[in-house]
């Protein structure tokens, strides 16, 4: 079993949302032109992930999973509502984003000024729903683990978008072949950063040796 800290570190580095799973690429590419906006969006993503994943964890374990309804009595113990999870998760994400937006607007106008325009964007950011779905797939044993995972993935996303934004700011002064300008070079750079991030796969977590993605593909090859 991996410890909570392992889950946290793993989510930042070797299972980075952007470099290993490409989640949230749309906003990653659209909002990474300057470091300031990237900081704003990155912070908003961390915030929303940390709020939504634990809520979805509770939903998953007390409502959706096979047998999760047993707390309501014998009659409900055999029910499996997991086919509803997509719609529940996205509804939770969308409504929490709306709620957070209203709360932030009311109680922290300065923060709202900084995050304001990004919050609605986040409802359709794949990394948020992706966080919820990975949480479901990996079946974390406690809510603490799920929270650690969400915080870690949020920070990983933040690091990725701030890094690419910084690189793109510098890129403005370099001579790139015209057809590669903008989108093309950003893709290739992200790929190279991904290669660099793959070196984190060598970190050993607790007793478990991380299984690299290559292995699974190689076995399927045979």
């Amino acid at each position, binding site marked *: 079993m991996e410890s909570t800290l392992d889950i946290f570190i793993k989510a930042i580095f070797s299972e980075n949302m952007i470099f290993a799973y*490409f989640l949230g690429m749309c906003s990653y590419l659209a909002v990474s032109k300057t470091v300031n906006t990237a900081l704003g969006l990155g912070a908003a993503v961390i915030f929303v992930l940390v709020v939504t994943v634990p809520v979805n964890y509770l939903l998953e374990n007390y409502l959706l999973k096979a047998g999760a309804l047993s707390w309501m009595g014998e009659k409900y113990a055999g029910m499996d509502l997991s086919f509803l999870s997509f*719609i529940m998760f996205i509804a939770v994400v969308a409504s929490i984003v709306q709620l957070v937006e209203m709360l932030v607007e009311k109680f922290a106008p300065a923060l709202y000024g900084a995050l304001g325009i990004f919050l*609605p964007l986040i409802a359709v950011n794949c990394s948020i729903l992706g966080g919820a*779905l990975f949480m479901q797939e990996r079946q974390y044993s406690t809510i603490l683990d799920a929270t650690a995972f969400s915080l870690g993935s949020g920070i990983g996303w933040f690091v990725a978008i701030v890094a690419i934004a910084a690189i793109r700011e510098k890129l403005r002064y370099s001579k790139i072949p015209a057809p590669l300008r903008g989108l093309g070079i950003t893709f*290739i750079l992200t790929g190279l950063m991904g290669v660099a991030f793959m070196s984190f796969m060598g970190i050993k977590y607790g007793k478990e040796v991380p299984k690299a993605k290559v292995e699974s593909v190689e076995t399927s090859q045979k």
Partner: protein
Amino acid sequence: MSETVEKVKAPSEPLFSKKNKKLITDPLTDNNPVTIQVLGICSALAITVQVSQAIVMGLSVIFVTMMGNVVISMMRNAIPSRIRIIVQLVVVAALVIVVDQVLAAFLPDISSKLSVFVGLIITNCIIMGRLEAFAMGNKPWPSLLDGLGNGLGYAGLLVLVAIFRELFGSGSLLGFPIFGDAVEKTGLYAIGYQNNNLMILPPMALIIVGVIIWVQRARNQALIEEH
């Protein structure tokens, strides 16, 4: 309801008028949702290791964009604009649940490989983008075609990337060995050819898309961006 609209529309405009055809063909090339509009990359790249996965994913997305476009377009006058995002999300989520259940029932292998990425079709920006930009302001039939076109544009790119990755990464296409047997050293492997394992790793998908964008923009100079 869509039928009545089509009937009313039919005399004034043929079903496959030039304008409607353009809705399908445009997204395939010069207005490709992935390479030009930069939408829907999120769930796209992780599943391009094998062509079969890419095809299934592409078909799922085509289905969801088409149906989602039609449904939202039929409801477009009834949706209050303040809550439209949530309405769209619910419609798309319901469609994706259908896709997910069908895949789990009939293609359990591929379904387990796609894992969370089927669910992530919900937040695929192509779908939300088309609902927002097209279906909210157009009748069901053009919306259907628009959904088909964009879905095809997306699926096409996915399959293209997958072909490169599977061919050079695993030496096969759709699971059939192309370059001979890597273990028994037949075919190309006999003269020392090696599979490029880098192709299987996730970052290569990004680099391949980057190169595709490069080629496309080099051929069509009008698409070149300012910084």
